[in-house]
């Protein structure tokens, strides 16, 4: 008897999975057209969560992420207060993550780790939780209907049911039509729209989601990148004082060094440009990876809706973790590079810079 029980449970799960796959096949290929997958509409800028509201869907997702993080922090604090030294369950995982972060920070910056870890661990946790929250179903698929703003495919809405006084619509993939926009026409149409009442239901619609992953908005990643790079300078000045800026403006070498002094001076300026390039690569790395992942998921979900997307979801989870870790690791590395003076790390760095310059 005791052997039969777990076997039975496994079998039940197997049937559930099979049933879900069959439901997926029915919805995607056999059933009514309203259940069929919809080709994605690519929207790069974040859209407002409701027409005319300043808050965008990515800001809302970021706020949800923040709330989750604060709850996590409160939970960890209470757990700590309770006096149990050995964490269990969820907090065990949390402690494992934090220990890993702590070890990498301490490995690269030594005794400065206590001052650096609040910044970089916050960045890691924010990106990590934001990327995980993005995977919840309903993100990027539930929203309000709006006519397309540029040349793209749009669909006719179909009324499903009423939620109180609020009608709920679904878009019908069988009725797709290409909406072509001329630039001039679009401007005229926009002018008309702002003059008219906005709330009449559109004929051909796109879904503007209420929630979109935070990192699919360039503003989010760019803000994090600016914070990371500015804090790099702050830590550099904290560690070295005004001497830190000698890295960028090597006037001393210009006077004393002769021809190589001039080269060093130029290298200093290259390093200054490099600081700005860091912002660019930080922000576009995270944004590009997450945005490409979202595109991949929605495109493959529309083309092969049954078996492939779960695997891609796993892939996306993996990439969410890796990108958070890369952002964290690069910020840690740059900060710990800024902590030591230029002279100590001089030799190989200048060599590299000269190769880049040549």
């Amino acid at each position, binding site marked *: 008897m005791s052997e039969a029980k777990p076997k039975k449970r496994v079998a039940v799960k197997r049937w559930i999975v099979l049933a879900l796959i069959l439901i997926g096949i029915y919805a995607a290929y056999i059933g009514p057209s309203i259940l069929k997958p919809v080709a994605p509409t690519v929207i*790069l*800028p974040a859209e407002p969560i409701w027409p005319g509201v300043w808050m965008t869907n990515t800001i809302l997702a970021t706020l949800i992420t923040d709330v989750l993080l604060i709850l996590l922090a409160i939970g960890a604090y209470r757990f700590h207060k309770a006096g149990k030294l050995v964490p269990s369950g969820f907090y065990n995982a949390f402690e494992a993550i934090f220990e890993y972060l702590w*070890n*990498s920070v301490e*490995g690269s910056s030594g005794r400065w780790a206590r001052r650096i870890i609040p910044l970089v661990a916050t960045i890691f946790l924010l990106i990590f939780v934001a990327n995980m929250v993005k995977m919840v179903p309903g993100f990027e698929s539930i929203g309000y209907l709006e006519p397309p703003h540029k*040349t793209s495919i749009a669909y006719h809405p179909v009324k499903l049911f009423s939620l109180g006084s609020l009608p709920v619509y679904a878009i019908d993939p069988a009725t797709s039509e290409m909406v*072509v926009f*001329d*630039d001039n026409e679009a401007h005229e149409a926009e002018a008309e729209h702002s003059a008219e009442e906005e709330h009449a239901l559109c004929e051909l619609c796109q879904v503007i989601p209420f929630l979109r992953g935070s990192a699919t908005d360039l503003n989010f990643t760019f803000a994090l990148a600016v914070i990371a790079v500015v804090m790099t300078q702050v830590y550099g000045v904290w560690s070295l004082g005004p001497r830190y800026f000698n890295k960028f403006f090597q006037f001393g070498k210009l006077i004393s060094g002769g021809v190589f002094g001039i080269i060093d001076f130029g290298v200093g300026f290259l390093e200054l440009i490099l600081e700005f390039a860091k912002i*660019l*690569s930080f922000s*576009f*790395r995270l944004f*590009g990876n997450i*945005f*490409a992942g979202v595109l991949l998921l929605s495109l493959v979900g529309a083309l092969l809706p049954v078996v492939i997307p779960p695997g891609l979801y796993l892939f996306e989870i993996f990439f969410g973790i*890796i990108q958070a*870790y*890369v952002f964290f*690791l*690069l910020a840690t*590395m740059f900060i710990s590079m800024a902590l030591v003076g230029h002279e100590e790390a001089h030799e190989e760095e200048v060599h590299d810079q000269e190769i880049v310059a040549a």
Partner: protein
Amino acid sequence: MNDPVAFVNGLRLLGAGLAMLGAIGAGVGVGIAASGGVQAMGRNPDAAPIIQTNMILGMAFAEAVAIYALAVALIIIFAA
């Protein structure tokens, strides 16, 4: 050719696709970094954590080129 707007749109998408050719170099670079990292870890498994950190760092830098290409492509499609 009869519809200049569609023609320009098509060329724009073609340009975005060409911009992503820059991803070739990044792919090769990431592959080399991973290969070197795995070989090093195979020879010296004790040093795996350090090698892994540096490998991911190098991969991130190599990947940056592809990210720039992606930025150019996105700008061509959505902004230009």
